[in-house]
C-alpha cells in the first residue's frame, strides 16, 4: 500500500483524510485508484495535478513507476512562465 499525502484543502473531498492509502505501481494507476476510492478527487485531478514521488515532481506522466514505500504527495499542477 502507498500512502498518498494530499494538500490540506482536499480533505473536504476525502471525508477529512489528508493521507489516503492506495495500491499502485505507477502514477497513472495511483490517480485511478484515488478516484475509485474517493470519487470526490475526480474534480481536482481533472483540474490538473502533479505527483511527487520521493521528492521528484512528476508533472504529467502517468507511467512513472512508484516504488514500494515511496513517499508520495499529490500536488497542484505546476504552471511556469
Amino acid at each position, binding site marked *: 500500500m502507498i500512502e498518498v499525502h494530499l*494538500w*490540506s484543502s482536499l480533505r473536504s473531498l476525502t471525508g477529512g483524510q489528508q493521507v489516503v492509502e492506495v495500491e499502485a505501481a505507477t502514477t497513472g494507476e495511483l490517480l485511478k485508484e484515488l478516484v475509485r476510492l474517493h470519487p470526490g478527487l475526480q474534480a481536482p485531478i481533472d483540474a490538473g495535478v502533479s505527483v511527487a514521488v520521493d521528492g521528484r*515532481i512528476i508533472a*504529467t506522466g502517468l507511467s512513472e513507476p512508484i516504488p514500494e514505500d515511496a513517499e508520495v504527495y499529490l500536488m497542484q499542477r505546476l504552471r511556469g*512562465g
Partner: protein
Amino acid sequence: MALDDQKSIFTFVGTRPDRPDGLDKVTGRARFGADAHAPGMLHGAILRSPHAHARIVKIDASKAEALKDVKAVVTRADFAEVPFEPGLEGEFWNVLENVMAGEKTLYDGHAVAAVAATSALAARDALKLIEVEYEVLPHVTDVDKAMEADAPVIREGAADYSVPEGMHPNVVRYHESGHGDVEAGFAEADLVVEDSFVTEATHQGYIEPHACLGSLGTDGKGELWCTTQGHWIAQKTCAALLGIETSQLRVTASEIGGGFGGKTTVFIEPVALALSRKANRPVKLVMNRSEVFRATGPTSSASMDIKIGMKKDGTITAAEGTFRLQGGAFPGAPGDMTAMCAFAPYNLTNVRQVGYDVMANRPKQAAYRAPGAPMGAFAVESVLDELCNQLGLDPVDMRLKNAAAEGSKASYGPTYERIGLVETLEAAKAHPHYSAPLKPGQGRGISCGFWFNHGGETSVSLALSEDGSAQVMVGTPDIGGSRASMALMAAEILGIPYENIRVTIADTASLGYNDVSHGSRVTYASGLATIKAAKHAVEKLCERAAAKWGIPVDAVKWENGCAVPSGPNAGDFDPLPLADITADMGATGGPISGHFEATPEGAGVSFGTHIVDAEVDPETGKTSVTRYTVIQDAGKAIHPTYVEGQYQGGAAQGIGWALNEEYIYGEDGRLQNSIFLDYRIPVASDLPMIDTVIVEVPNPGHPFGVRGVGETGIVPPLAAIANAVSNAAGVRMRQLPMSPPRILAALKDK
C-alpha cells in the same frame, strides 16, 4: 537516473562560444513576428472596448464593411463554439472569451471586433466606423474589493470544485496546504511578526509586440507565422477556437523578441486566422504597444498576510501565509503557486499557506517568470527581515539556520532531493559584497527565492549529413540563446565541433509535439532530448562501424567523435571518425538520424539568494540601486554567459517591479499608463552592473545535471530590494512598487 550515470567532465559544455544566430541578430537579418510578408497579404486591426465591464448590446459593422479597402470584419460569431467549464478546465473557453468578447466586455482593451483591409492605415480607419452599443456595468479592479460581498460579479459559475461555499463568485480557485501545528509553533516563538503586503500588477514588458501572419482556407487548412514561446500550443489553441483539425494548421515560430511567460498563449493569432478565412487572403496582425499593455500579459496583483514566529536564536517555529491574487476576468491567477513557493526555502516544522485565485475587470493574467512566486517571496522575506532586525540576527545566518536541504520536508509537502539553497547562502556570506561597508543613507537587503521548474512534452530530431555535420531540430523557440546550449550538448555527445552543428527551431509540421518555452524547461528538457537524440544517432554510428569492421556492435564504443573498438575481442582497428561513417551512410544502411520524444520528469527545483544595496533620497523618496549580486544554483551551466544573462535579466525585471512598474487604473476602470513613457521599466542609466555567482549543485534528473535558470532569478529581487530600501529608509515598505511618492509618504509617517 542515478547520479553515477551523470556526466561531470566536459569538453564543450561549460565553454562560451558565440551563439549560432548571433550574426543574423546583429545585422537586422533575423525575422521576428512583424517581419513577415505574404503575397496578397491584408492587414488586420482590432477594435477594443473602452469599458472595464459592459454588456455588448449591438455591433454594427455595416459602414466598415462597405469600404472598398475592407475585405473582412469578424466578431465572436466567426469563431467556433467552445464549451464553457469552470476554473482552468475551461481554458479554451477562457482563451476564446479573451481573444474576442462574447456577451460582455470584461476589461478596458477587450477585443470586440476585427477588420482586415488592404493597408494597416485602412484597417485602423475602418475600426472607427464600427458602431458598438454598450450597456456599461459596475466594475471592480482591486483584488480585495473584488472579494467583498457587494462586488460586481464578473461571471457566475466560474469557480471550480476547490472554492469553499460562501465565498464571492469572483473567487474561482482556492488552495490550502501545509503541515504541523502552526498555533503550537507560534506559542513556542520568542517573537511573532504579523504583517500585510500588497503588490501591483506588472507587465512582462517584452520589447516585441505580438505579431502574426495567418492564412486559413475554407478547406480548413492553414499556415500561421507568429512570435510565440510555443507554436504547438498556438496550433492546438487556434485549431480549437476556429473549429479546425490541429494537424491542418502548420505553425512556424518567428524569432521571438522576448516573452518571459507572456507569449505562452494566443491573443491575435486566432483573429488573424478568422479574418483570413473570411477574406480568403493572408492577414497580418500586429499589436501596438498600447494594445500589448491593455490586452495581454500582465501578472496578478496581490494582497497578502504573513505571520512568522521565531526563537531568539533564529529558529523559525511556525509560518503562516494568505495570498490573494487577482488575475483579471478569468480563472488562472496563481495563488496556489504563490502559496506553495512562499515558504519553500525553509525547513519548517509548522507551516500553513492559503492561496486565492480572484477575478476582476482586468486583462487575463499571463505567466511571468516564476508566476506567483515573486509576490509571495516579497511578503515572506520582508517579515523574515523584520524578525532579524528585531532580534538582532544576521539575515544570512538566520536563513542558513532554517535553510531547506536534501532530506528536508518542503513547505508544499514532499521531501527534497539534492538542492542547492545552502550553497547559495554560503556563497552570499563569502561574497565581498556582503561584507562591503555601506555609505550613509544606504541599506542592504537579502532574500532567498524558490521555483519549481518544469519538464514538459519534448521532441527533438537530430540528422547527420554526409560531410559529418549535424542538424538538430528542436521545438522550443530560442528566447535567450538556447540554440547555443543545444549545440553544445549535441557536440558533447557526438564529439564533433560546436560549429559543425546547426540548431533549427522546427515548425509544427516538421517535428512532434513540444510544450512551450516556459517553466525554465528549454535547457533542461530540450537539452535532455538533444542529448538523447544524439546518443540515439551515436548508437547507429556504432552499428555502422561494427558492420564495417565485422565485429559485434557491443564491441564498439564512441569516443571523441570516433567509433573505436572496445573490449578484448574487438580486434585492432583505427578509430573511425563520424564523417567517415556518414560519408557513405546512404550505402551502408541509409541516412543516420537520432530522435527523442518524451516528457522528462526530473526538472529539479532551484534556489537563489540575492544581495542588494539601495540608497534612498530622504527628501524625495527616490531609490537608487547601487550594487546587486545574484547567486543562483544552475545545476550545471551549459553556456555560462547565457546563464549569467538570465540571472541579470531576472534581477533587472525585479528591480523594475520593486521600484516603479505598475498597472494604474482610474476610477473608470481604464488603464492609465499603457505606454512605455508611463509604464516605467528600468533604463540603462537606472541600473548598476549586476554581479552573478553561478552555483552548481547537479540536478539528479538531467544527464549533465542541468536545472532551469530562467525563472528563479526574478523571485528574490522584490524582497531583497524592499529589505534594502526599508533598511535604508528606516521604515518597513509593505507595498510595491516602492515609487517615490510611497516612500516619501512612509518616511513622513515614520
